[in-house]
């Protein structure tokens, strides 16, 4: 298994052209992502969160600044087979069963492992996410939450050192979303991956992350970096605790441009 890299984003600026206008999607973004950490990026729509993920996955080039992985400039080839993606929509292959969809990534990225072991492993991931018994169902026979679980298994199955998650639970109802958040934490503690998690839900970012990056909109800039003090495992009790609510409130004020009461007090 590849070692978990240390990702450093330095002064990242991304500009692109839309018709005759140049859009400044990101400006001077610097983020340090230690190995095995869980970093949440929160901000309103249009703050360049998705752009940031695209740069990290090597699809988009930086206009200025750089992304270093273990001190080396990223190249697309270095990242090959190292990043698991989870998108807003499950994006499963409708003709493959749940099991077949989980196998997709390992078929490509883990060819050295025998087919039998890959199938056994995929089954294990499915049962870890509560999908035992649903292995042979097609995506359209599964609920939205179950589909997103399959998508999560697909990303985890090839044990990528980096997981990029782009608002993965945004399309789910609240109850399913909360269950998925706790599931993700459980799964993550069992893996070695570094997670970069983009969301526009503040409480989600606080609950999941060790470090929350608060971003502003147009251009996307880092407004504040918050190290979340809560110990793990985090679950139901934390959601209701006053310290949790306070931190969420603080970030909310930050995003709305209102001076935070918390900061005024301290």
């Amino acid at each position, binding site marked *: 298994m590849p070692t978990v890299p240390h990702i450093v984003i330095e002064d990242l600026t991304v500009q692109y052209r839309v018709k005759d206008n140049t859009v400044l999607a990101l400006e001077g973004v610097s983020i340090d992502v230690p190995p095995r950490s869980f970093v949440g990026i929160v901000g309103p729509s249009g703050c360049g969160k998705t752009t940031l993920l695209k740069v990290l996955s090597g699809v988009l080039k930086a206009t200025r600044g750089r992304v270093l992985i273990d001190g080396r400039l990223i190249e697309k080839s270095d990242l090959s087979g190292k990043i698991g993606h989870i998108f807003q929509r499950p994006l499963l*292959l409708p*003709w493959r069963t749940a099991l077949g969809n989980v196998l997709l990534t390992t078929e490509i990225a883990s060819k050295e492992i025998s087919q039998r072991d890959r199938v056994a492993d995929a089954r294990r991931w499915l049962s870890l996410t509560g999908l035992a018994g649903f292995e042979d169902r*097609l995506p359209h026979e599964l609920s939205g939450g179950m589909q997103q679980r399959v998508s999560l298994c697909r990303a985890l199955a090839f044990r990528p050192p980096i997981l990029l998650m782009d608002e993965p639970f945004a399309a789910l109802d609240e109850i399913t979303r909360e269950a998925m958040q706790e599931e993700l934490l459980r799964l993550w503690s069992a893996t070695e991956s570094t997670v970069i998690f983009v969301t526009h839900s503040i409480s989600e970012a606080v609950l999941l992350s060790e470090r929350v990056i608060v971003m502003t909109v147009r251009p996307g800039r880092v407004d504040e970096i918050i190290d979340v003090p809560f110990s793990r495992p985090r679950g139901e009790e934390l959601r209701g605790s006053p310290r949790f609510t306070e931190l969420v409130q603080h970030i909310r004020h930050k995003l709305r441009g209102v001076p935070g009461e918390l900061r005024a007090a301290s």
Partner: protein
Amino acid sequence: MRYVARLAGQAGVFTAFFLCWEALVDGLRIKPVILPAPTLIFSTMAKNWSYLLDNTWPTLFAVTGGFVLAAAFGFVIAVGIAYSRWISEMTYPFLVAAQVLPKVALAPLFLIWFGFGLTPKVVIAALIAFFPIVINTARGLGSVEPELIQYMHSLGASWREVFFKISLPWALPYIFASFRISITLAVVGAVVGEFISSDNGLGYVINYANASLDTDVMFGGIFALSALGVILFLIVVLVERMVLSWHVAVEGIPETM
């Protein structure tokens, strides 16, 4: 039970149609040369069944030949259009112009180029069947979620892996939709070819009977032709259901055209 009721209803429409026709011919005393009654047509077909069957094979051959050619060339060109912006931009106006052109109008020309017999029939059938396949296949290949393709490439997938694991299955529902359209168009093409330059096939039967005012034989040819078209269409639908069982389950029974 609902399935049986639906089938009975569908058969009922056919029966009602032929009954009205029969009554109309009887009631108005229409001469068989103008419009033969269905009973006369069916008895003529029964009497001449071997003649009709002998002439079904050349038509079937021309239709399938034209369809297979159209599918093969159409697929290759669609792949070019889907994966090369340059090819797509360069060829699209030409394809649209060619599609708008009534291919039937080219049939007399093919008589000059390819002479008498099978070749012009196959060429016309292929030409008519070609465009829906190109356009649908290109659209299907182009409709794959780009994020999924990027994901696959980020995993180190080769072009072939992406094509066969993702793009091609993704495009198959589009491709089969075009096959359903094209198989019926190929029948039209083959018959036009037989009208103009052939001494066999159901198109020839219709044309020849027309010249000798054997209207009942003409109708026999037409009925045989539509039966052939329906059977070919059903074969395509059957293959589609076998290959795309997942898609039929998602989308329901495909609409017929």
